């Protein structure tokens, strides 16, 4: 398969597969007259995502030899560079693990096939967004991502809390989208171009209009990227969604929105808009607010949702250091953290999801999981207690786990700025990492108590597919902690590509 075909297949496969998955699911139900017979839909999703991964690998081979390349379909151009390679990789792999996990977790839910169809569409939208090179396409993919993720958050449509969360998510996303669209129209009016590099080329002098456009982009994309104070939808949406979707939302969707913002801003660099300071400010806010809010949560998934707000802050700091001081380590560390966060937070949400499944869902109970339900979890479910401990300790930045290494790389970038003020910011971020252990560590302690919670005694056994997906995600969390340079082939081209479009 040549590189261009591979890219086309990569981008078309999940999107085309989405309705097919739905139809296959419906047809199986009709044929077998069994509402729970969804295995063809589940299996097809896994096969499609595996095929997408294989296609990505084949496209990546060409990328590593010949560098970035573009595919033109009339007006639409898709570009595979370091950034899109990394983001697509994370989207597909995480999507795959989530599909595997959900085959048990979602089994027997009403309209289960819709879940898989939407999941495939979400992965497709993420791939498209990471490959888009013009503002209009970027916006379309962004909307596609928003719509699929909102529908997935509202998947438990009989639960008021899920509906409330999805409506908040929808309305706030829509406000953001309007801002973006307005920003795009301003840029088009001023430069007559939509292609990102063409915009950059057509810019001759700074203009207040472009500044307005830039602020609209920051806020518009910022809503989806959960920048504080635009993050208010996130704790609801990420905690009410099915656990696999929580993993997708925290692990890749908010990061993809940030990358969309950075790509958009890169076209305006000559308009004397310097995003570095803005990113650093939001980064500090995200870290502080995310951690402090997480400290007082009693629902496990809400706690993890706030932790995502905080981790977005570390990623923002990384990009901010790079864009403000032009060093590679910041962006590379941020991409490394995106990779690690997908694994760590994915593992955390899936572990919690597995706990919810064995304790609650398998017993037909759909209430939220409280911290006290975890008491003594290790007595009966040692694997779940272990993977959840692994995930939260990695999120807290403890070695020898992956989160330590990516935070380190981000902090290195801060130190390389050689400014006491920036070093203070690094210490502040480190201080917040310590603070985060204030809610992660007691969670671990709970699970290793000897007195199990009552709900644990009534739990169902852990099944193979749940365990397998957790083990799969545990591997990178541990391995990257010992051997951080394994991620360099992905993170370094991504960082170089990003800095290149900013002209750094």
């Amino acid at each position, binding site marked *: 398969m040549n590189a261009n075909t591979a890219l086309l297949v990569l981008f078309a496969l999940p999107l085309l597969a989405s309705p097919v998955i739905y139809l296959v699911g419906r047809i199986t139900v009709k044929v077998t007259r069994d509402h729970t017979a969804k295995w063809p839909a589940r299996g097809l999703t896994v096969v499609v995502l595996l095929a997408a991964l294989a296609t990505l690998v084949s496209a990546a081979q060409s990328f590593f030899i010949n560098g970035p390349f573009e595919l033109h379909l009339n007006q639409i151009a898709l570009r595979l560079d370091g950034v899109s390679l990394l983001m697509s990789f994370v989207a597909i792999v995480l999507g795959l693990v989530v599909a595997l996990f959900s085959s048990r977790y979602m089994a027997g839910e009403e309209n289960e096939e819709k879940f898989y169809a939407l999941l495939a569409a979400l992965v497709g939208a993420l791939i498209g967004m990471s490959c888009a090179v013009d503002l209009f396409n970027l916006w379309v993919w962004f909307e596609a991502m928003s719509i699929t993720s909102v529908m997935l958050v509202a998947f438990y449509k009989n639960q008021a809390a899920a509906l409330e969360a999805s409506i908040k998510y929808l309305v706030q996303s829509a406000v953001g989208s309007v801002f973006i669209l307005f920003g795009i129209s301003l840029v088009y009016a001023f430069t007559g171009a939509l292609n990102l590099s063409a915009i950059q080329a057509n810019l001759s002098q700074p203009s207040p209009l472009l500044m307005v456009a830039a602020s609209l982009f920051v806020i518009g994309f910022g809503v989806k990227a959960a920048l504080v104070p635009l993050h208010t939808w996130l704790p609801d949406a990420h905690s009410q969604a099915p656990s696999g979707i929580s993993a997708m939302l925290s692990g890749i969707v908010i990061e993809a929105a940030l990358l969309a913002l950075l790509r958009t801003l890169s076209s305006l660099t000559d308009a004397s808009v310097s995003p570095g300071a803005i990113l650093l400010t939001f980064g500090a806010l995200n870290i502080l607010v995310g951690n402090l809010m997480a400290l007082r949560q009693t629902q496990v998934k809400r706690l993890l949702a706030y932790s995502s707000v905080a981790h977005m802050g570390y990623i923002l700091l990384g990009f901010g250091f790079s864009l403000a001081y032009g060093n590679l380590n910041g962006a590379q560390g941020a991409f490394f953290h995106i990779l690690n966060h997908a694994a760590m937070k994915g593992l955390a949400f899936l572990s919690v999801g597995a706990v919810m499944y064995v304790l609650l869902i398998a017993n037909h109970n759909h209430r939220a999981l409280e911290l006290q339900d975890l008491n003594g979890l290790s007595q009966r479910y040692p694997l779940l207690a272990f993977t959840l401990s692994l995930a939260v300790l990695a999120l807290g930045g403890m070695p020898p786990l992956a989160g330590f290494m990516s935070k380190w790389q981000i902090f290195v970038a801060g130190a390389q700025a050689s400014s006491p003020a920036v070093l203070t910011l690094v210490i502040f971020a480190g201080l917040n990492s310590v603070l985060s252990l204030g809610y992660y560590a*007691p969670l671990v302690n709970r699970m290793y108590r000897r007195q199990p919670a009552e709900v644990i005694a009534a739990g169902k056994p852990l099944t193979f597919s749940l365990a397998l997906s957790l083990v799969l995600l545990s591997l990178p969390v541990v391995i990257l902690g010992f051997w951080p340079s394994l991620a360099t082939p992905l993170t370094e081209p991504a960082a170089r590509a990003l800095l290149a479009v900013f002209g750094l």
Partner: protein
Amino acid sequence: MAAILIVCLIGIPWMGAVLVWLAGDRRPALQHTLAVASSVLTAGVSLYLVFLNQSQPAVTIPMGSAFGDFTFTPDGLGVFLAAVAAVVGSLAVIYSVDYMRGAAQVGRYYAMVLFFIGAMIGLVLTSNLLLMFFFWEITALTSYSLISFYNDDPKAVAGGLKALIITQLGGLGMLAGALVIYSQLGTYDLNVFLANHAQMDPLWLKIAAFGFLAAAAAKSSQFPFHTWLPDAMEAPSPISALIHAATMVNAGVYLLARFFPAFEGVPGWRTAVIVVGAVSALIAAVMALFANDLKRVLAYSTVSQLGYMVYAVGAGGIFASQLHLMSHSVFKALLFLAAGTVIHAVGTRDLRQMGGLGRQMPLTQVVFILGALSLAGIPVMNGFWSKELILEAGLEHAPFWSYLVMTFTAGLTALYTFRVVWLVFFGEPRSHLHAHDATAFMRVSLVALAFGTFTTWLLAGPFARLLATTLPFHHFEFETTWEVVFEVLTAPATLVALAVIALGLLAWWRRERLLSLQKRLAFLQPVAEGAFGFDLLNQIIVALTHALASGLRVTQTGDLSWNIFAIVTALAVILAILAVGV
């Protein structure tokens, strides 16, 4: 060869940890066997590595720009501390076979202990600053997990969390220091840093120096971070002996000693180290005097003795500090294990309920007294030689007031040590406690360590040569054990110290006469029990953080209109910022 040994030293205990965990709690006999086998094997390898010392890196794994080369250098300081960690570690594990027999979740216990031993060895052998921080944090993680091993006990959970948070806070200093060194010199290799530290801008060198001091103080539970170690005593006793006496808490002293050549010229740094050491030594000794919990007395005493080592580094006596580190590892591990035997036998840690236990547990009594003699600095125990060297270094190279403080503390040390010995083993039984003496596996560890308390000082000469030949940036004046002995015996500080120690002992024998003095000092008791106000300070910081977190919840209204309002406001702010041009 050295490379293979280093890989084994970290690999064997870590593999052992995984195997013990995989063995599962249904097979405790297998778990005990695996743990003992891997820790003893590690100890053997670590002793062999001592003879393969070199000042060049033995293992180098390139990791790319932001992570540097992962290097391990078996120099004198490294192989010595690795041997201490492995040997005391294996003795603690052997002791645990009896101590933890029948306990629940033994797998988690051994896995964490072995994970700790590997990490501690890595910490002292690596010459990459990132890896040093990496292992540094792993030791904190394992320490936390073992302190709160009894997770159902809220005190144990709180103690573990406190230890974790405080050492991590200090660890930020090391993080900042390592980052600054990398950004200035472009390397994580600590020997390159020691060679080229003069090229660094003085401001950044100062940040690194004081950052490392903060990290060291937090790890070694020194003033003002001295509050966590006493609360860490909720850990099983072998853990107190291994992590909170013999190895991990020494990491701070190791860090200061390791980087002394680079930082000694930083204005104010040595004075700061001396102050931290002297204040810790003094206040911890006072706290030990008032404590009624057997393990807390030993914990305070650890803080105090670590204060001596820190003080020695500040005074430039690197060898003295490391020799005391060796002595202290042996006698304090012994005291903790003997205390563990007592606690295991009688089921309480309260000194007020003990008394007269010597008749029931003669072996424990003998080894505990040997450890106590060493702690008090009585000749010819190992603690005597190293403490005298420290006091002598203080007299020669540190401010005179600090020497007075340290000498006075030596007297206090003798006093509180003999108070403990008396309360536990002598006098009339104060309650009906039925004790049994140490069992087989416990005896092995106790006797081995007890033997060490009066023999390890004989290694002073070879140890000094080992350090001198492999640490090119440090200066050591001794060559043989005889020189050390001669130096100590002829120094005026020795006689003064012995007199003060004798006074301290006398104070205990004449304690009835001192009752009136004790009453006058009674006001000190609550202050000392609260770690001189620093426990309160910790609580206030935690309360403030929680209050801030609760206050912030107001922002999460759950009301969509407010959420949109926040979005629009943020847009206005960004517009304004861009308009004024930042």
